[in-house]
């Protein structure tokens, strides 16, 4: 149990650092809320290399802490919406076996951004937010592929494999 807590804690800290790094690289000139999605690297490693429960746990904690540290009540809502929808899509795709790690991450990124767009539509009440959807789809797909490729490579690393078995 203590080992599990240490491993999850380590990965949560990693995800938070990734979130902070994203915060330092603003891509907002493309469309509001665009990010690299680096924290998803941790989530995907857990999801594919271990199980859905641990991935969900670390992801939700990351969402909460990251909103507390770098965000606001509103950003928590958007972050949560994106995280829940993308997790649902990714675990479904993992079970279906159609895609590899990169494909799952691509769909996760697209799902995440689409969910945030819909959340913005509900919060702001204007259809104008959908104007940004193509940009969000493009960045979600590309960033998803990059993060997924990184995750897939990391999953072949001996140390990571052993860590995930704890």
């Amino acid at each position, binding site marked *: 149990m203590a080992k599990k807590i240490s491993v999850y804690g380590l990965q949560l800290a990693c995800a938070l650092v990734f979130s902070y790094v994203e915060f330092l690289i*603003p891509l*907002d*000139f493309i469309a*509001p*809320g665009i990010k690299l999605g680096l924290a998803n690297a941790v989530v995907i490693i857990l999801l*594919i290399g271990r199980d859905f429960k641990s991935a969900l746990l670390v992801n939700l904690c990351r969402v909460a802490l990251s909103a507390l540290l770098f965000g606001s009540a*509103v950003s928590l809502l958007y972050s949560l919406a994106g995280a829940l929808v993308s997790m649902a899509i990714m675990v479904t795709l*993992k079970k279906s076996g*159609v*895609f*590899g*790690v*990169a*494909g799952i991450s*691509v*769909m996760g990124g*697209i799902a995440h951004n689409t969910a945030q767009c819909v959340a*913005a539509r509900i919060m*702001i*009440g*204007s259809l*104008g*937010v959908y*104007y940004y*959807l*193509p*940009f969000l*789809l*493009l960045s*979600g*797909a*590309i960033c998803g*592929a990059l993060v*997924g*490729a990184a*995750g*897939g*490579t990391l*999953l072949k690393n001996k140390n990571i494999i052993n860590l995930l078995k704890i």
Partner: protein
Amino acid sequence: MKTFKKADIIILTAAVAISAALIFLLPAVLKTGTVAVISVNNKEYGEYPLNKDVTIMLPGNTVIIKNGAVRMESADCPLGVCQAHAPITKKGESIICLPNRVIVEIG
């Protein structure tokens, strides 16, 4: 699990192609607008014709209509994404200040 299966390449290419197509086609398909509609906190604040140059001062944002285009001149929000947005002219385009809940839409 493999990092890249065939399906992954297909979905990635499809996603990039579709979204890139949408990005380039949208401005051409949209018609030039006639009026800028500003709403604050989900309530309509005002409608301004695009052919008249005007400066609109909101509590935390300043919107300027000049030469048929609308832009966010200044805002007190932390990131200033709305200020960086290029001026808009077409129906359906919008500049949004999320923190201040200000929407400027072309109709």
